[in-house]
């Protein structure tokens, strides 16, 4: 049974990734957009020193990941609704949250490709040594962080099931997470009452660990403790998401919103 669910998640990932790849916009979003952003960012940072590149790359990379995921999760539902497939997949034995999880993996892969493209650009065009001081720890955190990241996005996806109009609020969710997770500047600059909010967001811990690993200051003990915490938060997010999906799908069956456009 477990294998069948894994297989279904992989199928959702593959389907979404294939749909993205065959879209002309994919090339633009994955290669040309990072080219433009990298030109601007690395141009500005030319005088700041070579070591600065990786910090910008991590912060902006995570911010980009969050945006992709937020819109990816929302659009996963909206896209299905528009193509008339939402009712069909809702009626399959695979839980809806697993399908959205798989689709989010597809979106994340696209975003990662985009990050890699911009790093390569910084290295090849601008000559920044985008060295990562602790590469093993960096990629381990990246993997754990991404799973937790997806679970976080998954909590929001049920809202988009409720009604097509809910998607209008998608934009409003983008910047609070950038700020609370310290993607762009340290959370110490924020009012003290926001700190607990940051602590319950797994992307905050992921960003902390990634920046420490990139800079070579990540202790093994911190890596273990905070990675466990990130995974635990991810587990809680998935639990909440599965309950929310169940409630919202039942409400959609009452309100007849699955087939709406």
């Amino acid at each position, binding site marked *: 049974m477990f294998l069948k669910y894994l297989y279904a998640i992989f199928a959702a990932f593959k389907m979404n990734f294939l749909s993205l790849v065959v879209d002309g916009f994919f090339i633009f979003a994955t290669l040309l957009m990072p080219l433009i952003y990298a030109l601007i960012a690395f141009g500005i940072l030319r005088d700041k020193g070579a070591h600065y590149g990786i910090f910008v790359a991590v912060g902006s990379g995570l911010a980009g990941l969050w945006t992709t995921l937020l819109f990816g999760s929302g659009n996963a539902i909206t896209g299905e609704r528009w193509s008339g497939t939402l009712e069909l997949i809702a009626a*399959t034995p695979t839980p809806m949250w697993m399908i959205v999880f798989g689709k989010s993996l597809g979106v994340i892969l696209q975003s990662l490709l985009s990050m890699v493209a911009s790093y390569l650009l910084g290295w090849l065009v601008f000559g920044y040594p985008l060295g990562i001081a602790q590469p093993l720890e960096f990629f381990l955190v990246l993997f754990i962080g991404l799973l937790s990241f997806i679970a976080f996005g998954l909590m929001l996806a049920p809202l988009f099931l409720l009604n097509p109009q809910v998607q209008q609020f998608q934009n409003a969710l983008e910047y609070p997470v950038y700020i609370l997770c310290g993607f762009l500047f340290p959370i110490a600059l924020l009012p003290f009452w926001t700190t607990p909010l940051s602590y319950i967001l797994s992307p905050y811990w992921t960003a902390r660990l990634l920046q420490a690993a990139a800079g070579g200051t990540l202790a093994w003990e911190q890596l273990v403790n905070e990675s466990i915490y990130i995974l635990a938060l991810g587990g809680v997010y998935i639990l909440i998401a599965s309950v929310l999906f169940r409630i919202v799908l039942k409400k959609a069956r009452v309100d007849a919103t699955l087939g709406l456009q």
Partner: protein
Amino acid sequence: MFCSDEFIRPPRGTIEAMSFIARYYAPSIFMRCGCDAKRRMANFLMNNAIQVTNLRRVYKSYVGVFRRKLKEVEAVKGISFEVAAGELFGILGPNGAGKTTTVKMLTTLLLPTSGTATILGHDVVRDVSALRPRIGFIFGGERGLYWRLSGMDNLKYFSSLYQIDPAVQAKRIPYLLELVGLKERANEKVEGYSRGMKQRLHIARTLLNDPEVMFLDEPSIGLDPVAARDIRRVVRDLRDEKKTILLTTHYMFEADELCKRIAVINKGEIVALDTPANLKRVVQDLSVVELEVKMFTPDALERLKGLPFVDAVTVQEREQNSLVIVQSPRGAEAVSELLAQLNGATVQKVTVREPTLEDAYVRLVEGMDETKKEGAGSK
């Protein structure tokens, strides 16, 4: 409601009498017990794949901006019917009659407002996870597919969501593509498919989990005659394989050709339920006069409807003229009086023919509307 008694004839002989008792009395005892297992047993004894009892659905929405008012539309008004295992059962009705709402409730996509429905003994509200792998459904039209992917990739994806073993998928998908005649085009993107091909792909998709009960909601809607014929061929093949099928349509000939029994539904109510042959008997005392008329006016329509010997009048607008279809017990004798009501119009052709299922349908649906108008008038 019209109903045939051919399914409830008295038993002959001891064995048949015992079978009769088992089929008609034991189920009712089990039904009264109320619990799921016993209800499933009752359906099993009755050999019913689908059992619908007083099913009702009300849509609620709010209108207005500041003073929001609740608006309720009763789409399905307490319908009841049953479909035997292996039967192809039709639901026939005009647009907005409640066909799709009924199918959506039976396929677990909508919750009924009241009433019950069981498919293969599973309640459509409570036993969703047990029921879903055992049913399949399609809704008419081009939506419901991933256009950027190939037909093959669409089927692979849905197979995985139905958690079908990859080894089974490898055999079943090529078989289904062959069944619906898409084998040669399987690796092309769906966006390049014709409407008929998309509809055939829908049928292949709905067969992926080898469903015991299939719901086909207007599968041939909007298709050209050749494509619609292909779809009917596939449906006929499925019927011959003893799949239980609930087909909704508003094409009479389709229902006539395919269905063992038909429920005629109008404005959320079943107005007749019988075999196509018995439904046609509703109009056996009538003949149909078809008049091809140029410059046909609404006044002329009212005059025709006002004639005492006219049962129903329908008008089909065409490019060059209007086809006026009049049902009357007087048949050919009525022609001269009918023509007299069309002063000013040019009559190009007059045909008198035997009534079809379509005429029965018109009489049932229009008859219901007229009865309602009279009822409202008398109040």
